[in-house]
């Protein structure tokens, strides 16, 4: 069951179709001596394959945010590939902005129609446009790499950021969004492996348009329609921004991992400290409901490593002080339930 519902649609199929798309585009480029756009096609193939494998073909016209995102990602890939066939490795920034605007408008359509006033819509769209363009710029920088071939560390960090986004989405009440992001990460892994063996950078700056469209769209859907909190969404976006740091120094290469680890840690900690929650078979990981302690008790326990009750240990010898801190903060301020 796990293979059919998770591994096949979320890992194997996107990896396979990404590899096929990459191979097709690369061989075509070799014959025509153009830049390949292979990375963009592979990313789109992975994204679209995962979507279809999980939910079936999207309706036309699309009625839901991720269905619309399906078509935007396909369009972005075709645009990048079209430019690549003409020997252009970059898109004009206006085109980047146009794709971002399309993602925002289509993914947030139900918010604009049902929830926001005109002023709210304008405010949100302008702010998100700026934010998404900054992320796009960071991805362009990361894919450009100033012509330097990425070391293994740089590749792993980039994969960790994309894969980590899927992890954060996974704990945001929508497994579907996480699976699609995971499929995208698998496609990206295929491209990175191909580039590693080919001993060349597999990306071109224009490929960022496809990755940005897909990830921004998924994060927006996670934030507005699932349970992604402002803090975790912000940390994920910060991780993407830090990909633009100059890669000469080792700490710059590792910098994106810090906000990502924080986001994952907060989400996991909040998930594990939810009291009295038998939903899903997590009985081995959560605190027993009958022993749910008060905020003060949890605070004391967090800072007294030896005082955890037996049933509360997540792993033998493991302590998670952040668990107690998060619980106490949440309990202290209802307005901080966003954590």
């Amino acid at each position, binding site marked *: 069951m796990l293979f059919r519902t998770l591994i096949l649609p979320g890992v194997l199929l996107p990896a396979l179709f990404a590899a096929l798309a990459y191979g097709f585009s690369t061989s075509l480029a070799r014959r025509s001596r153009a830049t390949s756009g292979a990375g963009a096609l592979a990313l789109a193939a992975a994204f679209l394959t995962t979507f279809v494998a999980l939910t079936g073909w999207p309706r036309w016209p699309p009625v*839901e945010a991720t269905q619309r995102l399906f078509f935007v990602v396909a369009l972005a890939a075709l645009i990048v590939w079209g430019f690549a066939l003409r020997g252009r490795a970059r898109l004009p920034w206006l085109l980047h902005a146009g794709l971002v605007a399309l993602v925002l408008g289509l993914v947030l359509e139900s918010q604009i129609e049902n929830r926001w006033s005109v002023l709210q819509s304008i405010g949100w769209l302008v702010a998100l446009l700026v934010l998404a363009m900054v992320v796009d710029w960071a991805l362009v920088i990361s894919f450009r790499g100033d012509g330097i071939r990425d070391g293994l560390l740089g590749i792993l960090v980039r994969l960790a950021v994309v894969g980590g986004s899927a992890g954060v989405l996974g704990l945001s009440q929508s497994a579907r969004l996480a699976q699609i992001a995971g499929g995208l990460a698998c496609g990206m892994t295929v491209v990175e492996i191909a580039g590693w063996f080919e001993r060349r950078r597999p990306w071109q700056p224009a490929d960022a348009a496809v990755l940005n469209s897909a990830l921004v769209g998924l994060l927006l859907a996670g934030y507005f329609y699932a349970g992604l909190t402002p803090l975790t969404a912000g940390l994920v976006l910060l991780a993407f921004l830090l990909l633009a740091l100059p890669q000469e120094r080792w700490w710059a290469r590792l910098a994106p991992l810090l906000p990502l680890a924080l986001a994952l840690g907060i989400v996991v900690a909040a998930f594990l400290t939810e009291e009295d929650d038998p939903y899903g078979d997590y009985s081995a990981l959560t605190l027993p409901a009958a022993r749910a302690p008060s905020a003060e008790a949890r605070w004391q326990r967090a800072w007294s490593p030896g005082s955890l009750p037996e049933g509360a240990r997540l792993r033998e010898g493991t302590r998670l002080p952040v668990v107690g801190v998060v619980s106490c903060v949440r309990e202290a301020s209802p307005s901080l339930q966003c954590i």
Partner: protein
Amino acid sequence: MTPSVRLAKSALLGITAALLIALPAAAATYSVDGTHSSAIFRIKHFGSSNFYGVFREVLGTIHYDPAKPDASSIEVTIKAESVDTRNQRRDGHAKSPDFLNAAQFPNITFKSTSVKPLGDDRFEVTGALTLLGVTKTITATAEKVGEGKSPQSDTQLVGFEARFVVDRTDFGMGFMAGPMLGKEVTLIISLEAGSH
């Protein structure tokens, strides 16, 4: 007034009141009373048990004509955000894009297109059910549970109950559809509606 006249008058008043209460309502439009209405769903979990959940907010109108039932109509709106499975995390998952996608599709609606009397206060109701932005025609058998006047106000009450089964994948809700979580969802809608 002699005692016998008084008695006759009381008897006449009593008989009139009884007749008024017992008489079937005339054609009227009723507003669904969400507090006394229920929308329950049932779905199979891991092929082992039936799981029940509810929607806490039900709205709508019923136009009911007892003399001409086929002229009756019903419009019901269920707020997707009001799903209640008695578990906060599960409620959140149910409202997420994996299932009801309540943020994008806040309402589940049913609008009847025809009502056919089947006798014995039973009706075949056909109409458009819209869920997740997808509209499908469904037919359900509805039963009039009863009618009468509210003892607390001047409201004429009528109650209907219907039970029907939908395939959630027809509406694009395919997450975990199969052995883990059933494709077929049974909906039990019990409505109490009032008219002044």
